[in-house]
């Protein structure tokens, strides 16, 4: 079975960013959504340590599930909504319990207070999450950028201007609230890295169009956190360049981490319900491997995207990033605004037609045999209604199954139901294959 050479470096990079936030002496600690534009923070200096809300909650709960469960209960006992975002409750739960856990198993007493919150506002829960954090920690300064989103947003001049103006305002706010001088040179360097990582990830995902697909969803979702945690460093760029090189070699040698790929499955969902032991056994036994997933690709990845209203998951040439003119602060800001507004996730959340086109393109370009959908219970966005509409679009063309699950709150997952539906999903793919050959 093929073992990825870069795997250890990826895990260390992620772990070290979290350890920096917890233990690095001095410096500036910032929390917020990692769906924000991160490079403005690096204009303040190299000693800026980022704790991204979603990846931290997800990975901490994944590493220490029992602590995660207690965090959820603590947040709910502290009054947070029972149907509020599970990641939000995990994050605030740690504040209520005054402790913090990270991916290397550290379970530290005493919460590490951020100096400021730099975040975004995609779903209507995002900035409310950090308003709650700021309030509970006695009023941490906070700046939230309204990303608007929507299909072709990066091509809409008024939206690019709106987001860029907020970034401009935000940088002046960062200088005021930290008392630090903002270096445009450091900002441009961090921005080019940030954009390069996003484009590289797109390239890596696109290689999975190959048959056999070199990587599967389980590896992909483990390889994209460094891009979530801090994609602004030279080290992060090198990481993804080395991964791209290795995956290209795998494709050339027809290598794969999951060689037995009888069925190519496309997965739409924030929740990794496919990874639950019973469900994954059924998929593995049937040779059904997840080769593409909108959340894993679209959270920190950029692609060719829309030409008119047709989407393509083909990658962008990394060399294009080197040619970007980032000579002034405004040019850097607008390049960042366009790249982030181009993310599939931003575009899909606010335009149902965008998520449908992305789905059709993914099924076609990845030559999918089946579509697994996982609308998650306590995530306001997650295109849940998009997934439900997709049942109608794909029901007659390829087998689809829809899990009833949650991103991390096991209490709200219908695991027995997911198992039954996975068995049926495999039966339907096998029946279709027989009809195909029959």
């Amino acid at each position, binding site marked *: 079975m093929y073992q990825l050479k870069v795997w250890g470096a990826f895990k260390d990079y992620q772990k070290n960013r979290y350890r920096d936030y917890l233990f690095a002496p001095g410096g500036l600690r910032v929390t917020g959504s990692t769906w924000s534009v991160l490079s403005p923070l690096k204009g303040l200096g190299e000693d800026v340590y980022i704790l991204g809300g979603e990846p931290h909650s997800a990975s901490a709960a994944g590493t220490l599930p029992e602590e995660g469960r207690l965090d959820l209960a603590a947040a709910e006992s502290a009054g947070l909504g029972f149907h509020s975002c599970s990641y939000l409750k995990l994050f605030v739960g740690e504040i209520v319990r005054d402790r913090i856990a990270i991916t290397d198993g550290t379970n530290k007493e005493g919460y590490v207070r951020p100096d400021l*919150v730099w975040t975004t506002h995609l779903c*209507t829960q995002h900035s409310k999450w950090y308003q709650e954090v700021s309030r509970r920690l006695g009023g941490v300064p906070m700046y939230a950028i309204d990303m608007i989103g929507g299909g072709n947003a990066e091509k*809409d001049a*008024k939206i690019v201007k*709106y987001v860029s103006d907020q970034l401009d305002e935000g940088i002046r706010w960062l200088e005021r609230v930290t008392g630090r001088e903002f270096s445009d040179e450091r900002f441009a360097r961090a921005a080019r890295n940030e954009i390069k990582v996003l484009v590289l990830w797109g390239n890596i995902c696109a290689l999975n169009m190959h048959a056999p697909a070199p990587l599967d969803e389980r590896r992909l979702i483990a390889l994209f956190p460094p891009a979530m945690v801090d994609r602004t460093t030279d080290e992060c760029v090198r990481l993804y360049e080395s991964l791209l090189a290795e995956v290209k070699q795998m494709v050339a040698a027809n290598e794969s981490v999951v060689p037995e790929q009888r069925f190519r499955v496309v997965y739409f969902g924030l929740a990794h319900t496919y990874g639950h032991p019973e469900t994954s056994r059924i998929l593995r036994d049937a040779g059904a491997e997840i080769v593409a997933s909108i959340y894993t690709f679209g959270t920190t990845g950029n692609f060719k995207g829309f030409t008119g209203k047709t989407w393509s998951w083909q990658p962008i040439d990394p060399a294009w990033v080197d040619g970007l003119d980032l000579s002034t602060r405004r040019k850097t800001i607008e390049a960042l605004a366009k790249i982030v507004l181009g993310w599939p996730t931003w575009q899909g959340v606010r335009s149902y037609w965008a998520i449908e086109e992305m789905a059709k393109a993914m099924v076609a370009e990845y030559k999918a045999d089946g579509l697994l959908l996982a609308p998650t219970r306590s995530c306001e966005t997650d295109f849940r209604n998009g997934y439900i*509409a997709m049942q109608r679009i794909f029901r007659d063309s390829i087998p689809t199954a829809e899990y009833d699950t949650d991103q991390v709150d096991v209490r709200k997952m219908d695991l027995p139901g997911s198992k039954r539906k996975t068995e049926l999903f495999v039966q339907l793919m096998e029946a279709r294959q027989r009809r195909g050959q029959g």
Partner: protein
Amino acid sequence: MPPKTARAIIEYFRGVTEDPHAYARSLQQKGQRVAGYMCTHVPEEVLYAAGIVPVRIITAHTPQAISRSYIHETYCSFSHDCAYQGLEHKYDYLDLVVTASSCIHMSEAFNVWVRFAGFQTKSYLIPYPHIMQTKPARGFMVESFAEFKQFIESFAGRAITDADLEAAIGVYNRNRRLLKQLWDLLKLERPPISGPDLATVTLAAQVMDKAECNRLLEQLVHKLAGKQGRAPAGVRVMATGGACDHTGVLDLIERLSYPATLVFVDSCTAARYFWFEVPEGRPDKLDAIAEGYLSRIPCPAKDVVPGTGEKERFRFVQQFIEEYRPDAVVCLYQRFCSPQPMDVVALKPILEKLGIPSTDLELDTTIPLAQFGTQLEALLEITQRMAPGG
């Protein structure tokens, strides 16, 4: 026969809320074009300036599981109810449906109308800021309104002049002033109109042609002038929170076994709809409309003061507490809503500091009236410090 007495006018408004379809069709029979809107951030003046009457889509409170195979289980009942009415073709007569990008749940209700209920070619989504308090929000709104105006001009087949916009702004500001004037009556010792009746009038105003509505409101103000209502009995209650078009819930507050008076409702189905004005006489009409809509009481889904993360709405809530002097507060939130419960948990400590008891009502398509009655009566017992043994 136009209603004569104040009570007749109020009942006419109630009739409009009970059957908004009949009213909207009566407009169409008079050759009026009617556009439905799902969120109060839609700049109605732009539609009205083109001779199109905006009517708010309000819910029918009938539970329908059909919407569950289009909208996920854990979306609020307001979005399910709006979606359901589209799927059941209750609003097919509308010439157009418009919404402004606001919370995700309501966007999905709009999407269901466009994808599955036949509104593909007669719908428009206005890109709108999701945070009201940033400096760039205004410029973005003006550009977005300009595009909306162009769409409406081509849809209506006529130009929208500055004069049209100014006239529309005038009619809408008149409506807002009249509603504010009526709600000010609740500050009086013996208000001539009750809170629940006024909440029903305000909800009706959102589904009516504003010119006609203004005429009725003017008559109502005239008939109520100088009148003394019964002394506001018992506990003064203020409601605050999310959209609540359940007139039954607000009526319940004054039909308990202890006397209570509903003195104010901070919700987008009530005060948040009219508690602002669009500056008049400005050269740039769309900029004036943007300025007006930015000065509104922020919706819980759009309320983040840059730099501090403060919730600006709570400043308004405390202002209403000073002006309307409630003894108790009822927090309304939609079950499954994301933003509203986050406001409730942040508002509680403020109310406790002010010494004002409160309870939360979890709104849904169907509501347990006996349970709500018990919660509200317990709130009144606590506010009156009712103790065993007298």
